[in-house]
């Protein structure tokens, strides 16, 4: 059921994208999210599309898997497209049938906004697909480290994040197991009237909560008994290493920014 989910999932592989420093990838995505709003004509969309494809190609994620996993988002994009198509009433009238009117700007907006949406989703998925959760957390912790001066509990936040990321697969596995156990006792999760399906949540959620609380307690005990005292003076097992290819990625996104600024109308 959750087989095809790709959000927040890591695909182990050897690719240029996999080998980049997580900080470089995080910064790239962060900048990308801003500069995509600079695109406003065909030239800029072509440039940013080419960049997206390049990153995609460098990640060695099978296209079929990516497309299958993004299917739910695809419907959302389609919905946005039609929203813009039918409700923007500017520019020349292109098409009219009964009460449906399509204007030039509507079509343009529809295509542009959908593309923007698609590029954003692709780039952010590539980040999580090619970076282990633990590297993302490490990267974030290092990037946010300067904020410690203002008493932001960076280490604690990073720890919380890595613990939750660590337990997502466990939780999924457990959900699957309990769903199966209850299905074997006659609960229907995916067929039958909606009312019954909503009721079916209870026998699933209660065991999940019970085991999550138990696990949290066990984890806390285990950490304490192994001498965990918080981030003060703690060194790292995995050291992040910034290499020239990381600088190249950042340079590339800078070039993209400049190009967009020059080409936008």
């Amino acid at each position, binding site marked *: 059921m959750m087989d095809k989910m790709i959000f927040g999932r890591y695909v182990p592989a050897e690719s240029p994208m996999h080998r980049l420093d997580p900080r470089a990838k995080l910064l790239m995505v962060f900048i990308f999210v801003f500069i995509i709003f600079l695109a406003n004509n065909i030239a800029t969309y072509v440039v940013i599309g080419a960049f997206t494809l390049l990153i995609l190609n460098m990640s060695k994620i099978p296209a079929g898997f990516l497309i299958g996993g993004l299917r739910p988002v695809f419907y959302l994009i389609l919905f946005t497209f039609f929203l813009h198509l039918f409700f923007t009433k500017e520019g020349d009238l292109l098409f009219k049938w009964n009460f449906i009117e399509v204007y030039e700007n509507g079509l343009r907006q529809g295509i542009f906004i959908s593309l923007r949406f698609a590029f954003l989703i692709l780039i952010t998925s590539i980040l999580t697909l090619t970076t282990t959760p633990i590297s993302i957390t490490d990267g974030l912790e290092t990037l946010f480290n300067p904020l410690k001066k203002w008493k932001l509990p960076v280490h604690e936040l990073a720890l919380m994040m890595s613990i939750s990321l660590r337990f997502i697969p466990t939780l999924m596995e457990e959900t699957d197991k309990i769903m199966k156990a209850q299905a*074997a006792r006659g609960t229907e999760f995916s*067929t039958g009237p909606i009312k019954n399906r909503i009721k079916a949540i209870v026998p699933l959620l209660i*065991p999940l909560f019970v085991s999550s609380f138990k696990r949290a307690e066990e984890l806390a005990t285990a950490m304490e008994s192994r001498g965990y005292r918080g981030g003060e003076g703690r060194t790292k097992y995995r050291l992040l290493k910034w290499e020239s290819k990381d600088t190249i990625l950042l340079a590339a996104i800078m070039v993209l920014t400049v190009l967009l600024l020059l080409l936008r109308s």
Partner: protein
Amino acid sequence: MQINLTNVEHKYQKDTPFERLALREVNIDIPSGTYLAIIGHTGSGKSTLLQHLNGLLKPTKGSVHIGEYTLAAGKKEKNLRAIRKKVGIVFQFPEHQLFEETVLKDICFGPMNFGVSEKEAIMLAKESLHKVGLSEDILDKSPFDLSGGQMRRVAIAGVLAMKPEVLVLDEPTAGLDPGGRKEIMDLFYDIHKETKISTILVTHSMEDAASYADEIVIMHKGTVYETGSPREIFSQSDQLVSLGLDVPNTVRMQLMIEQQCGRKLDQICLTMDELSEQIESLLKRGVPK
């Protein structure tokens, strides 16, 4: 109820980079009323196989016939409920499925899902509670206030109360104390003898497989390695060891005796009684040396 698996293949997460072949070319026939034990190294696909027996998983190739129902790759089966009513599964660590406020409600959950009236469900609940060796005064307690062993028994009672025609057990005694283990295994055996329901047991205990099963299936790397009676299976100790399995204690003892006195016993001994009889007759004949 008869069960046949024909050329069953199962791939987890098919068509993704995470695809994993868990079962291939599995062919098993389970005649009505058989007590079948499935043994195999960890990861050999035993639990995956069990989940095909009531449609929790569907074969990605091949087909599973359960009584008059068929689950085949690529086909939709509308009668899943009917199948699940007939095939009860006790999962590994079944106590994790408890959720109701009281033990009574939890045991009634299964039967009532399958359309049994509340009154009848309560009767079934009490009956199965007795079967698993618990007394009625815990019926109104919260299942979360019980000990681990009691929770396990309540969960098992919840499956028994559904009155399945086939009982599927995935290491039902893992993590219990030896006494409790024997009690629960004897309980399943008694039910099997009394009601003639087919019982399919996955176990890591060679002793359990030897003393309860009519038929043993060895799973290895996702497929059936061998099928046979306990005596046939456990007479090939070298092969079992090479698969990462073992022989029952009695057979190990027998092998040691045979090696020590250089003489074969008349048959493979699956129980203590058989072994002591054999040793007695050996002593009567006189041990050389």
